[in-house]
């Protein structure tokens, strides 16, 4: 069994009298340590798929195996614990707590995991902030940080529980292109050095180029990248080359 495996996942929303099928019979497998981009136009169902993969929302039917656990059968509280232990999230709009220091923002998820003392939480948060290059900004509040720095705090927060998987939902959507490259390189580095599985959700082909594998969603179905070997025709398989990075910035 793969690290992440979706089997016949369906997601249907009830809109009044109509049922809207957003995801249709999705089958997908991801290995440990992959850097995957999840792409698709808006309304294609990529956000819904990301919510299901991120254990934020249960599927209507189907099985979702994450690290040998069937997430679809877990209760909301069990999913919350699972998110805390195994998943990290990075959002487009950073979602940092206002008027709260970078250190406390990063330590925040540890308040919900058992067996981590507050002191330990602060130590770990400091260590990770140093790793993302913010050692001089520990006590700064988000309003005093630049967009790139805020996103790095958000990445540090996603990493603080040492999760095997990180979900990044349009992580560069609010950043300029130079900072975007920095952030994306940081994801690549994490993926290569730590072996963290990273799932990038984006509609931007340039961002998707940073991934080793691109999964393209269209109309609630995976149209490309079901298997690690196949690459979507629209997006070249190779990691972004130097000239392409230049073009981004």
């Amino acid at each position, binding site marked *: 069994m793969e690290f992440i495996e979706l089997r016949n996942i369906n997601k249907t929303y009830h809109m009044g009298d109509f049922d809207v099928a957003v995801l249709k019979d999705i089958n997908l497998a991801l290995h440990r340590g992959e850097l995957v981009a999840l792409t698709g136009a808006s309304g294609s169902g990529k956000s819904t798929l990301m*919510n299901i993969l991120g254990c934020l929302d249960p599927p209507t039917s189907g099985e979702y195996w994450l690290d040998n656990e069937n997430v679809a059968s877990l209760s909301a509280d069990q999913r919350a614990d699972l998110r805390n232990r195994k998943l990290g999230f990075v959002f487009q709009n950073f979602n940092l707590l206002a008027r709260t220091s970078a250190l406390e923002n990063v330590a925040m998820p540890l308040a919900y995991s058992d067996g981590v003392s507050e002191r330990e939480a602060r130590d770990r948060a400091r260590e990770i902030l140093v790793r993302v290059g913010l050692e001089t900004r520990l006590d700064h509040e988000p309003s005093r940080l630049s967009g790139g720095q805020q996103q790095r705090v958000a990445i540090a927060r996603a990493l603080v529980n040492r999760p095997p998987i990180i979900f990044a939902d349009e992580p560069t959507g609010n950043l300029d292109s130079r900072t975007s490259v920095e952030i994306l390189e940081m994801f690549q580095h994490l993926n290569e050095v730590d072996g963290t599985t990273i799932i990038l959700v984006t509609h931007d082909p340039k961002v998707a180029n940073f991934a080793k594998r691109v999964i393209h969603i269209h109309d609630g179905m995976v149209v490309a990248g079901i298997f690690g070997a196949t690459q979507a025709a629209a997006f070249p398989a190779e990691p972004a080359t130097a000239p392409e990075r230049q073009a981004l910035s």
Partner: protein
Amino acid sequence: MKGVRTTRLALRALRRNPMRAMLTMLGIIIGVAAVIAMMEIGTGSSAALQKTITSMGANVLLVLPGTAASGGVSFGAGSVQTLTPEDCEAFLRECPSIRNAAPIVRVRAQVVYGNRNWVPSVIQGTTPAFLDVRDWNDFTAGESFTDRDVLNGNKVCIIGQTLVRELFQGESPLGKEIRVKNVSFRVVGVLVAKGANMMGSDQDDILLAPWTTIKYRVSGSSATNTNTSQATTSTGSSLNTLSNLYPSSAPSLYPQKSEVQAADNPMPIRFATVDQILSAAVSPEEIPAAKQQITDLLRERHRIHAMEPEDFNIRDMAEMTKTLSSTTTLMTNLLLCVALISLVVGGVGIMNIMLVSVTERTREIGLRMAVGARKSDILRQFLVEAVVLCLAGGILGIALGHGGSKLVRIFLNWPVETSLLAIVTAVLVSVSLGVAFGFYPAWKASRLHPIEALRYE
């Protein structure tokens, strides 16, 4: 473990955002303070108003002697002398509803000072208790005569403002001798002005002296005023000269005794009678009880059989009592309205600010859920925050409301009365509103999918 952690988290969240915490608390502070201040000022005013009306004599009971009648012709109140100073003392001793009582001996006479004279509308012999019964304890100069003066029949008096004006013309009356029917009285006190009573008669046109002095020295020396002064001469077993003059079937005070009976049970002879007894009930509500107690006591003391009519009358100030009770009801209702309005206004304020402050944090809730907070963690955090805010706000509100009403008392000199009920109600309502409306949006947010909460704008 997790509970302690989230509690600490909530406290830290509050500390981190002192401005928002302060604003949220402000709603509760103002709500609680408004109710408490309004209630305290209102209760104080109401009590002061009642006291004012009471001081006009709302709880005064006047006991008058009964009437003599002969062959169906009655002679009107006061035509027999049946009340004694001992009756008055017995009121105090045996009637729990009576606050104070004073005997009164009335006389009408000319008062002379130097080359001026005046006939006061009221010359009363009484005891110092009279002043307490009438709520008239303030003097512009000097002080009241004492119980010792009453005992000794000292020739001292206190006078009202009208007498001061008519007799002294700007001179200080204190220590001066004035003559009443050629008896010289030393002025020991001058009463403050009380003005006219409800019937329009001048209450300051008054001279008060010990009743013993008036009885034995003034009216006793008057041959013309039999109505108020025969008692000094009555030393026999028969008390009423009038009933002897006009034999009638009017109640005789004592059943006739044979010589032997009289010798066996020597009856104390009532040397003195008084014209009226003025008494004050403990409170206006106690008036019916006081009347009943006086009736029972006097029937017993005067040995009146069950079938016989009473030899005394009791008058109360029914009109004034009615005014008082309607004023009290009015004030109570007014206060209730004020308190309800304050509670509603304060409650709406609390509601709004709690709803806003939690709704504004929906995204924070979404984020916390995304990183692994359970529903119960979210709920506990917001519940703790709401409880802490409400309690702190409640305590500050009590202090502010109480302090505010104290300031009103100090600077505006308004009467203020602490109202425990107001404090308890205001705090209970505000805190439960605050907790409910702080908790409700958090509960709603915790039921959202984390992703929806995160996208909330």
